[in-house]
């Protein structure tokens, strides 16, 4: 475990060195739904090969932030760059940009009318224009990576939640993304199925994939993340190496959140709306 940690740390340092152009750059990002301002000015950079875990209470805007990075949500204000391209530029071909960004959802969102293999091949063929054989080859390779080769002909409905999520990861990988976004990938899973999905994500991190992960899995964040970002009330409250943010948080709100997460009974006591955000960090 401790070797993992140090490896991750080294990785991060390395990436820090060659991060002339960060893979993801978010600048002054605001997002409102009607009168509800969910994001209140986010600045964030994710270097190539870096694994960033975003944590925070529900309603803190962390999923919205992630969804702004591939423009599933249109930012109200601010800029988002992915691989050096400003995707918030209205002239940019968003479909082309999204091909480089893999997204994994809480609810898996596999296509239920297609077999597992067709879930992987259809996007490759329709979006990337690959021919049938090439797409099938890439699909088989990625199913093997997530350990589900034997489910190639199954329909998603016959798989467990954990298997579905691994297929969803394989589907995203089959497009050859440079960045992977994970939106609470294990929150809809039965506890005993979480481990397999996290193992696949850990493998990706070890392979050097650039990853942004919204999660409640503190042990995953602690062991795999190069950097942990704590959000609350639509702002980034603090960020840094997991040992610092999770191990010894400097902000009261971070401490409060972590203590409630570790001791759920506390959650009942104080379920008040978050205090006015102070724009620290």
């Amino acid at each position: 475990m401790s070797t993992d940690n140090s490896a991750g740390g080294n990785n991060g340092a390395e990436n820090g060195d060659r991060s002339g152009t960060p893979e993801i750059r978010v600048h002054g990002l605001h997002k409102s739904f009607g009168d509800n301002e969910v994001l209140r000015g986010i600045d964030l950079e994710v270097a190539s090969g870096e694994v960033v875990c975003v944590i925070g209470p529900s309603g803190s805007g962390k999923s919205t932030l992630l969804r702004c990075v591939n423009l599933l949500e249109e930012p109200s204000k601010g800029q988002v760059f992915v691989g050096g391209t400003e995707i918030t530029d209205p002239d940019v071909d968003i479909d082309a940009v999204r091909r480089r960004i893999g997204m994994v959802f809480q609810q898996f969102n596999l296509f239920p009318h297609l077999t597992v293999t067709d879930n992987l091949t259809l996007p490759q063929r329709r979006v990337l224009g690959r021919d049938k054989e090439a797409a099938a080859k890439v699909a088989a390779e990625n199913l093997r990576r997530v350990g589900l080769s034997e489910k190639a002909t199954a329909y998603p409905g016959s798989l467990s939640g954990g298997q579905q999520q691994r297929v969803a990861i394989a589907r995203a990988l089959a497009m050859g993304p440079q960045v992977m976004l994970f939106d609470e990938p294990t929150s809809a899973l039965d506890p005993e199925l979480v481990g397999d999905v996290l193992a696949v994500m850990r493998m990706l991190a070890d392979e050097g994939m650039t990853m942004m992960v919204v999660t409640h899995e503190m042990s995953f964040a602690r062991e795999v993340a190069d950097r942990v970002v704590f959000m609350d009330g639509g702002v980034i409250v603090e960020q840094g190496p997991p040992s610092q943010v999770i191990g010894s948080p400097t902000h009261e709100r971070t401490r409060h959140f972590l203590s409630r997460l570790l001791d759920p009974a506390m959650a009942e006591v104080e379920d008040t709306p978050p205090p006015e955000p102070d724009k620290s960090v």
Partner: protein
Amino acid sequence: MTETDTRVQPRRRGLTRSQKRAVSRGVQYAVFVAALVALGLTADWDQLRNQFAQVDLAERMFPDIITLALKNTVLYTVSGFVFGLALGVVVALMRLSSVGPYRWLAGIYIEIFRGLPALLIFIFVGVAVPLAFPGTEIPGGTYGKVALALGLVAAAYMAETIRAGIQAVPKGQMEAARSLGFSHARAMVSIIIPQAFRIVIPPLTNELVLLFKDSSLVLFLGVTLEERELSKFGRDLASETANSTPILVAGLCYLLVTIPLGFVVRRLEAKAGEATK
């Protein structure tokens, strides 16, 4: 939640529940038998038999009623259904469009063609279209006209069904497709509409049954002998022989198709219910 109330209920006065149920069922049977007896005694059965059950007359209708009339009914229905389905998908997509005028146009279309009797639309297609566009022939002759008239009616109903089907596909499906790089249109065609169709197959089959019956309205377009369908065929023969047996036989031919179709609908609905579990 799972524990049932085990307290002993105080004994009610009068009849127990099962006794009440027995009495209620007895009354319903009594009413049913009384109605049958009344019908049997009051109706003039000899007259009915003469008018509707002339076996030799019925025999004379075969095989034409199958090879010609039923065949035409099926042809009219299918052509109307195919045209209506195509138009219905277009109207449904317009209804869901982000372009305002498309939505309004589709809404107006649906309100008009759902609100008018199918008969008026047949007359309109038969009379108004040739007047409005003189010199233009609707391709396919009578079949084309029927496909147009039936399709116009069916599209209005099917558009609403298909729209509901598209909206019943979870939002995450479109998001997943978009995040994989599908354009909105391509995601609709490749991912959303195929799933929507699975949802709407039972109600669309129901629409097919309705169209099958509405195809009888073709007689208001004026058809040649070879173009007659079940209702026209039966009615012509009935007036020719001054006997209603052909009507009864034609009616049985409708049921020959609609009852199995109804069975298929229920099977599909049961299957769809299972799939969504």
